[in-house]
């Protein structure tokens, strides 16, 4: 078997620049369209969307019931839809059950509500271990779950995408929906952390 070592390979930055220069020179891609995609996922689509969904579910029991029944439709009501969000299933954490999301085959992730995945979600260690030793991995990631808590792991192998509805932390009774949304983190909506005050 032969393969180029890391040192002898052309750097990925340079290969990226090369492909772009070929495609742009031949009018196959428009750099302005590329910029639009980039801007969309840097500025407009991210975990702040999912946080609004979670906060609304916390303050509005009717919305929460609908969200758990029809994730896609209830999320679209708040204006969030698009690529990688054709069918979103929301799973609710409780003191008895903890849900966590992974994609072992690539890095499928609910873009309309969480944006593009963070580095660790795409990491081989996360993808390989979350379906084999989730409790140990979660603990290494800083989330210690009591032995009595049942862990449910969701591997995103089809076009179904998952969003975790985290538990609302105690002591937040007086907060507004907007203030609550400010507490909700990306990690909690993937299931590798809890929401804290």
């Amino acid at each position, binding site marked *: 078997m032969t*393969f180029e070592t890391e040192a002898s390979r*052309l750097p*990925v930055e*340079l*290969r*990226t*620049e*090369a*492909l*772009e*220069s*070929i*495609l742009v020179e031949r009018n196959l891609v428009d750099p302005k*369209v*590329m*910029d639009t*995609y*980039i801007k969309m*996922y*840097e500025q407009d689509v*991210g975990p702040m969307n999912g946080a609004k969904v979670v906060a609304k579910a916390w303050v509005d029991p009717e919305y929460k019931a609908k969200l758990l029944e029809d994730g896609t439709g209830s999320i679209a009501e708040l204006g969030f839809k698009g690529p990688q969000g*054709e*069918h979103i299933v929301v799973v609710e954490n409780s003191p008895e059950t903890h849900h966590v999301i992974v994609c*072992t*085959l*690539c*890095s499928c992730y609910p873009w309309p509500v969480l944006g*593009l995945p963070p*580095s*660790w979600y*795409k*990491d*081989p*260690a*996360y*993808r*390989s*271990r979350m*379906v*084999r*030793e*989730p*409790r140990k*991995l979660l603990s*290494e*990631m*800083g989330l210690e779950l009591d032995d009595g808590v*049942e*862990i*449910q*792991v*969701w*591997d*995103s*192998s*089809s*076009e*179904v995408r998952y969003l975790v509805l985290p538990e609302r932390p105690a002591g937040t009774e007086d907060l507004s929906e907007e203030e609550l949304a400010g507490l909700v*983190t*990306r990690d909690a909506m993937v299931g590798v952390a809890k929401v804290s005050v």
Partner: protein
Amino acid sequence: MDTIADMGGMQGFGSVELSPPFDPPFHEEWERRAFAMALLSMRVSGTNLDSFRDALARQHPIDYLIDGYYGRWLNCAVNLLTDSDIIAPGAVEARARRLRGEDVEEPPAPEPHKPDYKPTAAGSIRKIDLPPMFSVGDRVRVADMHPTGHTRLPRYVRARTGVVRAIRPAQVLPDTNAHFLGENPQHVYNVEFDSQYLWGSEAEKFTLYIDLYESYLEPEET
């Protein structure tokens, strides 16, 4: 194909480093460019999301691991564009060498051959008339299949028995759609597996849920 992309249950990758909660999606300019180009490469090459995932998975395992996530996307775009003869094999490497000042010849642009393919609708979800073969609560055996082409059936559940917990909307079958052999839309089932059944009695106790296409499932033998 049984590729490096199928990572469920592999060992030896070490621990996971959490990134800050508000970590931006891109850290370097080339990651932004690779991301956008890879998305656009599907349209330019006349392919689809399933071919995209196939092209991601079938790159050399060393490239897959060394180049990182957006590097993988770049390699995937190059695969798709080369397959459809939009760019010649070696074109990116030659251009890269020229960009850094080497005097190398670039291969001429080939005559494009995009796949003869048109999706019947946007996205992957389809309405089908056929009733689902399985019901919630059914015990199902996952096929012991090892296709040479694309699949979304991970190794770690093959030939295992689980319980159907939900029926998902019908979806295009990635295994055929990735290779333009038809959308083959079918029911998708959420199937539950017990962790100690999958990984042995010493393994952690938890429940695993995974969405599997009807073609991947058989009724449990009685």
